[in-house]
């Protein structure tokens, strides 16, 4: 009954896992653990109480014992395993040395104050953030604090400008989200202001060169359009109702003077932050994000940090604070390799006259406290550092001109028990099927 229950559970889980993405949860589910444990206990009890301890029945002891040892090894593997990957990037000095790898099921926020590159790391738990339990982050500056406060599983983050606008009558704080929709622009009695980071500032020349009314702007009102993507500072373009055009480059913390509706207007860009849009569109790209609040005694800002598999691939979100810029990255937790791995040469080989991969080969140097050695890391040829095994598992984006290499890293706890269990099970089966009848026949003849 337990064997049938195990079979049915695994069959159902396989189909559910194929259509969903919760495979790991299904195969670590308490029900599966209970069925497996009960089956092992039952098998041991039945073997020792009901199977005669004779040479003929040795196969039963071997195979049943093998299954129990295999189950112990498998449980050790399932719950003690560390799985992840590492990345090395090609620079003018060769491939970057790697001393740590990223764990798949553990997240972290990296924060650096003042200068990029000196990041402190804090592990964050998305589950806790989802449940509203904020997590303090390590930060190397006592004047400010940082705290992870929210988590979104799937969102397309939207850049939002935090502006302060001052005219003759009043001062206005404004949060201006990026986008083309009417709901995302802000309209006052005299002007409309919108933010389009998808328009490069180089395209603003055409805008400034034009004249006459601007499309989609109510008659009699001026337009302030802020353009400029991720890699360039934003630019404010103005178009007055009577055809005047203006263009000013914006920099965080530096006010610029504009003329809107014939009156002077001071525009101060305080910060650019990322936010999830209020309405998630159905085609929003899948992506995790964590919200981080940075605060000092009299100041605070909350920004969303998009998830990246490798911190090497993102420059990080920059937040302006009273103590200078703060850089934030959200990725997986890094763990030491226990040594340094350096790729000397990387080569992608295809089968002759074909695009079918033959090998993805890296000549590597491994430095550990025990010494330095050279090795070849290729398909079916892993390299080991301590208890970790490093394998070629995924391909470079451009295999013929690789700029970065990604390698799988796995620890394999319980492996010895697994192989012993497998061996005993197979030998036990063969014994029970082919040796036991011979033993019983001889015994019968002797009798």
């Amino acid at each position, binding site marked *: 009954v337990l064997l049938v229950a195990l079979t049915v559970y695994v069959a159902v889980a396989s189909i559910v896992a194929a259509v969903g993405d919760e495979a790991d949860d299904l195969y670590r589910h308490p029900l599966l653990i209970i069925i497996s444990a009960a089956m092992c206990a039952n098998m041991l009890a039945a073997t020792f109480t009901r199977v005669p301890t004779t040479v003929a029945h040795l196969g039963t002891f071997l195979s049943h014992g093998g299954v129990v040892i295999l189950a112990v090894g498998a449980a050790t593997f399932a719950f003690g395993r560390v799985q992840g990957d590492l990345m090395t990037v090609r620079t003018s000095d060769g491939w970057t040395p790697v001393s740590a790898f990223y764990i798949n099921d553990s997240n972290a926020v990296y924060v650096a104050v003042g200068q990029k590159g000196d990041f402190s790391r804090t592990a964050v738990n998305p589950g806790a953030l989802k449940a509203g339990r904020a997590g303090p982050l390590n930060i190397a500056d006592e004047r400010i604090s940082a705290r992870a406060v929210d988590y979104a599983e799937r969102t397309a983050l939207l850049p939002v400008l935090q502006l302060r606008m001052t005219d003759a009558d009043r001062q206005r704080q404004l949060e201006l989200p990026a986008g083309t929709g009417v709901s995302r622009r802000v309209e006052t009695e005299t002007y409309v202001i919108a933010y389009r980071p998808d328009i490069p500032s180089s395209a603003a020349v055409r805008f400034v060169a034009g004249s006459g009314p601007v499309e989609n702007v109510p008659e009699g009102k001026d337009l302030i359009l802020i353009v400029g993507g991720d890699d360039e500072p934003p630019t404010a373009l103005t178009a007055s109702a009577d055809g005047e055009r203006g263009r000013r480059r914006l920099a965080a913390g530096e006010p610029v003077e504009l003329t809107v509706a014939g009156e002077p207007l001071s525009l101060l860009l305080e910060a650019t932050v990322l936010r999830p849009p209020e309405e998630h569109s159905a085609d929003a790209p899948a992506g995790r994000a964590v919200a981080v609040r940075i605060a000092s005694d009299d100041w605070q800002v909350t920004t969303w940090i998009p998830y990246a598999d490798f911190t090497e691939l993102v420059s990080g979100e920059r937040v302006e604070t009273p103590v200078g810029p703060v850089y934030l990255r959200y990725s997986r937790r890094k763990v030491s390799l226990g040594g340094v791995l350096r790729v000397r040469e990387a080569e992608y080989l295809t*089968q002759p006259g074909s695009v*079918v991969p033959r090998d993805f080969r890296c000549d590597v140097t491994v430095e550990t406290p025990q010494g330095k050695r050279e090795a070849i890391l290729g398909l079916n040829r892993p390299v080991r550092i301590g208890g970790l095994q490093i394998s070629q598992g995924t391909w470079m984006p451009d295999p013929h001109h690789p700029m970065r290499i990604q390698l799988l890293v796995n620890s394999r706890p319980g492996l010895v028990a697994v192989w012993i269990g497998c061996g005993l099970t197979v030998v036990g089966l063969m014994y029970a099927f082919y040796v036991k009848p011979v033993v019983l026949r001889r015994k019968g003849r002797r009798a």
Partner: protein
Amino acid sequence: MRRAILALMIVMLPASPAAAGEGVFDAETTDFLARRDTSELELMGVLYRGRSAVLDTVARQQLSRMGLKDLPAGVSHTAAYLELYFNAGAYLDKPVLAVSSDPLLEALAERLDDETARTLRETHRLPPACVVDQQALESMLSAGRAGMADYRRAAVVPSLADALGELSARAGLGLPMERLAAGYGAFLGRGLRAAVCVAPGKWTAVDTALAGSDGVDAEVADAWCSLRDAWRSRDADGVKSALRRVAELQRRRAGERYPSQAVRTAEIAYNRMGQFTFVWIGFAAATLLWIPATVGRRRLRLPAAGLTVLSTLVLAVAFAIRWAISGRGLHMPPVLNQFEAVTASALLAAIIALALELRWKRGAPALAGSFYAAVALLCAFWMPGRMGADVSATHGLLDSPLMAAHVGVIIVGHAAVGMSFVLSVVYLLAAAARHQGQLPGDIDRCNVIVVHIATWTLALGIVLGAMWGDVAWGRWWGWDAKETWALITLLVYIATIHARLAARPRRRGVLTAAGCVVATAVMLFNWIVVNYYLTELHGYA
């Protein structure tokens, strides 16, 4: 009885499709092609899909992509392919590329003028000019495979270039569009991308040789250009001498790595015999003889055994040829895709059956092995394309002795599973008919032997797969759908064995048979549903 068997065999033989090539080549061209002796070129070794192959293989596979499997009488595949290649310009506005699905055909026809649409509907073929792009046309011109007159003629054919992207993205048209694209690629001559050897280990495209580009010495370029010119001008003597020159140069340039005459001849035979999958007829006939031989007509045992042995030998020869021509080395038998797995399991089932028959002499194991082999080979016979009958290079990750051992042992297990299914069905039928003779007992005993083989081979195969997974990916188990369902098959057998031990003697046979039927259903689920719909890491298997 004999009439019934004959009628059954006639029904099961494949219907002869219309000679598709007749609509493409006119009478004059057909006559020219039929008179060409291209045997030297057929045997010429080229680099193709990551391995050494004969040109005959390239021609057959590339024509098949264009939907030109059957040619006019007397025309060889190599001659037809070279005609389409060297004379490509003449066929730009002719219906050459097969359109395999009616919805795609209608979608294409809607975008064409009346005349081209009518031809498409009548022939189910599309002129390459409808899909050809400027770069490909220029490449044909520079290689001398088309002239300016062809270029101008192609220009007036309505182009579908703008519609192709939209149609590829439309639901249900993705696969037919992929097939059309493959046919188009074949027409452009992609099969000859590495067909010219310029130095040992260095290969280039025929287009490059014809265009006289850098890296191709004058002698090679001249030989190929002579062949092209003689072919296009229908100069029979010129073609003959140029064919010889090209083949001889290829052999000389390739040096020691050139495949031996024996291997190349074997490959031609393998192609002509359609990968030998017709052997299903031998096993089916043997099955029909084993049925009466098993239930009592002992005089039929000898012809049944003879036919089984003969079919097994032919299949073993086919397996050996495929192994040799794949060029994968002794450590990698041809068991790496579904076609290879299914045909290998048929061979192994036949061998297990004959071995058991030799020892057992009851007819039941041979009946099971023959029937399973017949059904497995029939699948390979009917769906060679879908199952991957073409020999191709191996993904580097699969190039491991552990992998070969894993798949090989699992295939033995699958062969045993198939045999146990046949035995179980026969047992259940006999039990349902309340057969009083020795037959049910014989079949049950035989079934237990086969179940034991299936159990330990599946267990060992899974362990070997785990060992390979540990080396390849650093994880010995990953709950991948394929490995999970292999485990489920094993669990069903283990449950069956334990149920048999616990059951009363009278019910053991039925329990075992029922367990085997369930295990076979699980294996088929693994082969069909998992392979085509749930596969993750085993996607290339």
